[in-house]
């Protein structure tokens, strides 16, 4: 961001000379033609490279650890710890066939899918009502839902745990399936409201004239048109569910009902010095479904994230 005076002096002059020819060229390029390669290397590529390396190193280290034989894990100074000479899949094997890991994975998936589905259904209805039916006080309700988004789970888990006990849901997947929507509904509603607003009102008026009910309009017109928004909401909500920790830690106590994040933290930590390999393998496998989902829907994911912020 800080530049020397010399290059700054050059910039206006250079743009003056070249702007006429550049004006006809691709506009999206902006003024980047002014940047010479060596200069760009120093100001852009090197810092970017460093940041990306720092951001990705933990994953590399996780991966390397998970395929290292046990004796190498505890011997940093013997060889190069950043490389594995004899990779082994023993940790993965142990994880998948000698522990409850597949059950935890299934629990996480089950809870995440159910909670996300419930939240999307509730959010579609709520968002449609707020943006299109515009009943009395719809704006206020929209604001309140946004406020609900700002209530963090960390201040709710203690009273919720007593409520879960009273409802008899403690240590069942339903404790999570019913509480996760409180995190997801505000977000999804807010996101979908943005999408619904972009659908032309005329379409709905035509349908009303043709005698469609509100329900038919929602199912046959609005939802098909808002599919990209629904995918965004689904992916983001699913990720949030998968990531959730504090409710899962508080409401689930028995081993076979745990979700991956809580199980990793509590079940693998047993004072065994050789746990690191399976711990890292567990963390890696637990992240994999999300990373795969993300790889296919990057654009939806980004639009969900930025869309919720822009509103």
């Amino acid at each position: 961001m800080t530049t020397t005076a010399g290059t700054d002096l050059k910039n206006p002059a250079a743009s003056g000379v070249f702007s006429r020819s550049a004006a006809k060229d691709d506009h999206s390029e902006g003024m980047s033609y002014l940047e010479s390669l060596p200069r760009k290397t120093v100001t852009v590529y090197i810092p970017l490279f460093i940041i990306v390396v720092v951001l990705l190193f933990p994953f590399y280290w996780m991966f390397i650890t998970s395929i290292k034989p046990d004796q190498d894990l505890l011997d940093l100074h013997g060889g190069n710890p950043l490389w594995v000479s004899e990779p082994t899949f023993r940790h993965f094997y142990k994880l998948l066939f000698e522990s409850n890991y597949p059950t935890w994975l299934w629990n996480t998936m089950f809870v995440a899918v159910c909670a996300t589905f419930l939240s999307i259904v509730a959010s579609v209805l709520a968002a449609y009502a707020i943006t299109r039916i515009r009943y009395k006080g719809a704006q206020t309700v929209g604001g309140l839902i946004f406020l609900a988004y700002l209530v963090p789970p960390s201040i709710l888990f203690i009273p919720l745990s007593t409520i879960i006990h009273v409802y008899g849901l403690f240590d069942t997947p339903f404790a999570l399936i019913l509480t996760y929507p409180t995190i997801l509904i505000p977000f999804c509603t807010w996101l979908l409201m943005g999408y619904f607003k972009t659908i032309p009102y005329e379409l709905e008026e035509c349908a009303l004239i043709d005698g469609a009910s509100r329900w038919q309009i929602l199912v046959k017109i609005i939802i098909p048109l808002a599919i990209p928004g629904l995918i965004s909401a689904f992916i983001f909500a699913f990720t949030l569910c998968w990531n959730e920790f504090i409710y899962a830690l508080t409401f689930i106590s028995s081993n076979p009902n745990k979700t991956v994040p809580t199980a990793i933290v509590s079940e693998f930590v047993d004072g065994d010095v050789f746990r690191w390999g399976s711990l890292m393998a567990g963390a890696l496998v637990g992240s994999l479904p999300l990373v795969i989902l993300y790889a296919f829907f990057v654009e939806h994911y980004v639009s969900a994230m930025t869309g919720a912020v822009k509103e």
Partner: protein
Amino acid sequence: MADAAAARTEVRPMPGEPSAWQQLKVNRNWLGFWFMVPAMAFLVLFLVYPLGKGLWMSFTDARIGREGRFVGLENFEWLSEDSDFIRALIFTIVFTFVASAVKFAIGLYLALLLNNNLPFKAFIRSVVLIPFIVPTVLSAVAFWWIFDTQFSVITWGLVKLGIIDRGSPINWMGDPFMAQCVVIFANIWRGIPFIAITLLAGLQTVSPSLYEAATLDGATRWQTFRYVTYPLLTPIIAVVMTFSVLFTFTDFQLIWAMTRGGPVNATHLMATLSYQRGILGGNLGEGAAIAISMVPFLLAAIMFSWFGLQRRKWQQGESND
């Protein structure tokens, strides 16, 4: 007039008898209500009610398996003399402040870098977001291993570089101050992608012609950033930072997975302390009181980042035009 009115009210129920049901289906307000029922049921049962109950519990001496009785402000009085609580409070504030400031600085810098014309831009952007999508607990576990006291790869790197001696490794997780630095670092690492990508989305809406105009007028790079980019970005910065501060302040999982509040309670945030006292210790009332005492700070933080930045935006608009 009166007759007419009476007649009308009399006439109404005639076709209205079957249409009372019709009314519920067609009337805008009723229809809106039906559509809102599922969402509201969830939010009221599992958000509003627990929030109220949490407030009530913070004034009781409830324990696990026993409804508490009202004890007034006793929990809070007790906490205000509790050195662990004060320590957690101070660390939470420092943690939030330092982590948010650094996240913002690096996040903005990364967004500006990514806003350049780069080869494989979309790919780099997706790679940058990975720390954000991987569950926090799982990456926290990786950090736990990276900063392991005996087998830390960082220590190995520092030894190789000759910065520290192999005989006296840094006790990352054992030393209170180092542990605090490590959890702050992990939080920053996790938060940067979110800030960078959302700010990048904001940056992409800024027209390149504004930069061209500024450059023609002889603006330096810093001036371009300060007087073109920054003012246009303030609304989105306000929202992003509000969220960032909120989630940093109430963080639980990162700390719980890495240190569980240790060593000697040095890395307890209010959320983790509340879990330890409320759920593990069984003092639900006290735990709820700790959780509730986060609320004023949260409100203050939200107000600060929201209105502080909004006002600046307004001032800028005022002075520029």
